[in-house]
């Protein structure tokens, strides 16, 4: 039976900024342009917004307050939750709960970043040893790619997963991006292209890693009731969940990621089974992220992820299309990607994605991973459905 919150809130407006390179824009400028786009998408005005959520990689801890000023908004509900790239997926579930509780009626979720033009070394920038928690990482030169590579190597050792299988994920995302006019990397690639690309942190090659872009996005979340009167077909929030995975007392199972807990909760709340899911939007920071997420969400058993992604299963036309927009591996990854997962899932459920549309998509599963998979990360899942 669906949970109490299921279907009470809807995503009414979305906007993905078309830019992937914006040296002439600021972070807040991008945020504001995205907010304007999402409000225009659903036909609401700034005066209708009474809830605001954001997170960022360069805005300070009071970022949500700064965004309110920049947009000249006076919201009565604020969410500055920052749990990494998954933050915006979590903002949607927080907004749904706030709307159901009457704390706000129209929540704007926004993100913007100039990660690429500011030359942030997101994946291979290393960590500092200055703060006490980082002291256990900083002296060893761990990069973000490196933390995911530790998980990939463990998966290979335990289950015989191959680099070719991981490469299939990158190939599928690039094929999807070739159908998305706004994607940053659109030239199709082969498994051999991935394997022959430069090694970054074994076993992950350059093409196993997401791109770095500038960009931004925004969502308008409101009650299902109000969404029915707006410009676009509402997309209902059917289920949600959040989780963390960390070092526990010192020896966690690296292959059990946060998605296991958050995904189970979201599916149960939605009253939806795996077979009902028509399309997935999964955080693809690295190819291994997708494989581990599919296993932990329960689309296949632990260890079967390598075989699962073979043969075009996660490509358009396959049994479970993942990231029809091309994902972070090929379309858009300005530092934090969670908001784009929700945007693409919503666009797919509206049925207006043109060449990359999953025909007749009724139910979408969104999962964001934030942080470093092998060390400390968060997960946030949404199940979305057509009204």
């Amino acid at each position, binding site marked *: 039976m669906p949970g109490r919150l299921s279907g009470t809130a809807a995503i009414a407006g979305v906007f993905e900024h078309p830019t992937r390179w914006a040296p002439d824009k600021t972070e807040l400028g991008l945020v504001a342009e995205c907010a304007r786009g999402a409000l225009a998408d659903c036909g609401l005005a700034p005066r209708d917004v009474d809830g605001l959520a954001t997170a960022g990689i360069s805005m300070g801890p009071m970022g949500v307050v700064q965004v309110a000023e920049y947009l000249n908004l006076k919201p009565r509900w604020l969410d500055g939750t920052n749990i990494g790239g998954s933050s915006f997926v979590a903002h949607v579930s927080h907004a749904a709960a706030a709307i159901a509780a009457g704390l706000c009626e129209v929540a704007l979720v926004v993100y913007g970043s100039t990660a690429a033009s500011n030359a942030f070394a997101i994946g291979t920038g290393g960590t500092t040893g200055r703060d006490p928690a980082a002291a256990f990482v900083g002296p060893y030169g761990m*990069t973000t790619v490196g933390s995911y590579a530790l998980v990939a190597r463990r998966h290979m050792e335990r289950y015989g997963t191959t680099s070719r299988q991981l490469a299939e994920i990158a190939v599928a995302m690039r094929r999807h991006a070739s159908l998305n006019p706004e994607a940053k990397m659109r030239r199709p690639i082969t498994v051999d292209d991935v394997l022959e690309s430069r090694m970054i942190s074994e076993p992950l090659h350059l093409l196993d890693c997401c791109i770095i872009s500038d960009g931004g996005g925004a969502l308008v979340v409101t009650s299902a009731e109000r969404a029915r009167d707006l410009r676009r077909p509402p997309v209902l929030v059917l289920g949600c969940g959040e989780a963390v995975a960390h070092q526990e007392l010192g020896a966690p199972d690296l292959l059990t990621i946060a998605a296991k807990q958050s995904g189970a909760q979201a599916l149960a709340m939605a009253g939806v089974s795996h077979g009902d899911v028509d399309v997935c939007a999964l955080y693809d920071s690295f190819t291994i992220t997708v494989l581990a997420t599919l296993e932990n969400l329960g689309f296949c058993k632990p260890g079967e992820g390598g075989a699962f992604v073979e043969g075009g299963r996660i490509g358009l036309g396959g049994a479970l299309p993942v990231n029809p927009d091309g994902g972070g591996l090929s379309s858009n990854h300005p530092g934090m990607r969670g908001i784009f997962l929700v945007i693409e899932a919503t666009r797919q459920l509206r049925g207006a994605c043109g060449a990359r549309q999953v025909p007749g998509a009724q139910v979408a599963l969104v999962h964001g991973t934030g942080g470093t998979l092998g060390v400390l990360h968060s997960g946030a899942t949404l199940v979305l459905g057509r009204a």
Partner: protein
Amino acid sequence: MAAAPRRPAPAADWDSRAYWEGAARGELVLQRCRACGSVQHRPRALCGACLSSEIEHFAASGRGAVHTFTVTHQNQAPGFREACPYVLAYVDLEEGPRLLANLVDCEPADVRIGMPVRVAFAPTEGEFPAPVFRPA
């Protein structure tokens, strides 16, 4: 031949001071709860299993086995850029906890999961050295 990394100084605080001071003595220091017996890493003010404050420190054997590893070929951070390729690994300690560290004194191509290793201590840019591992 890659250069030795220049390791940023680890910052010790009240939770981790015993760990880093142990490293300076050549000991790998872990925490054990006097109330429930749990061994934990990273260090905390209380037991992560039972929340008791009765925490004691002890020197681990320094022996362990590689749980997983990655050979890092690209790190733009100064101090590590010149040290590529180097091996980052999780090491399962005999006492239970798993430590993130580098494997040193071995060819990256020779590293295997399950390989027995032993702790060593590498200098950092600060007063405390950092535990690393070499083939046992």
